[in-house]
């Protein structure tokens, strides 16, 4: 597994997020904020990122004619959940901090913070498991 394998797919996902943001500057952010307010955003993102990760891993394994390992599959299934749950706590702390600091346009700022967090969390949840798998492979290679 090389990090460049999932990088292209992640880049296309990131570009898609950017295009949606540019083409629907009002409705796309509102969709994200409303889903976050209804506590649906994190489960949807967990489902989405785990599916993308598994799809990516299987396609890379197929491409390299390698047998998918259980440890890697477990990593791909669990790391996005931990990352997204952890970053959700960070986002809540961010929102409390923004409202408590009595800055102007606090509500608009919070919406933008939710948008940025959603984007960075999506990238982190997809990239982190592959980074861990790659680093583990590197250490194994060094040990051998």
């Amino acid at each position: 597994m090389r990090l460049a394998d999932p990088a292209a797919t992640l880049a296309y996902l990131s570009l898609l997020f950017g295009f949606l943001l540019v083409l629907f500057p009002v409705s796309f952010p509102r969709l994200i904020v409303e889903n976050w307010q209804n506590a649906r955003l994190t489960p949807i993102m967990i489902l989405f990122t785990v599916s993308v990760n598994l799809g990516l891993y299987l396609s890379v394994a197929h491409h390299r004619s390698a047998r998918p390992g259980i440890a890697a599959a477990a990593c791909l299934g669990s790391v996005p959940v931990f990352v997204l749950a952890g970053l959700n706590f960070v986002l809540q702390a961010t929102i409390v901090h923004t409202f408590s600091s009595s800055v102007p346009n606090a509500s608009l700022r919070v919406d933008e913070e939710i948008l940025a967090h959603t984007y960075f969390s999506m990238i982190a949840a997809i990239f982190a498991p592959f980074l861990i798998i790659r680093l583990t492979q590197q250490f194994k290679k060094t040990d051998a």
Partner: protein
Amino acid sequence: MVAFEIFALTADWMAAKWLLWIALYLIFGLFLPWAMTSAWTSQHRSPMKPDLKQLFQNGELGLISLMLSISVIWDLQRSQYSSYTIALGSVFMALAGMMAGSVWIEAYCRRTTGIRFRPDRAWRDSRNLALLVFSLALVTEILLDRFAKAAL
């Protein structure tokens, strides 16, 4: 609703700031080196036909990506986002930048020490990681642009 979207899209010309930013990186990072190579081959009447793959076959795109990620981290640090968001964005830009930069480093080390080096692999890895860094940087700049308007 559609009219409102179109209005929001076109009303503020500041929205084009990130377009200028992309254009600068594409022109100075990719097009200019290629144009200079073409100019050199034409001046020296060389039969070489330069293409991007040949020009960046040693993983140089990884180095460009590292520079790009540094500039976005700097923009994030200057923004009015909360410290958590700035830290999160900076860490991921730095990680992606370092991964892209490591392709160039690995290619350099392999070429220097004579350990098996595959230019096609260096090109493919650096191209994919450069695309990732570029897309991360682009969306981060769009988000920064939006936040700057919201914070007014």
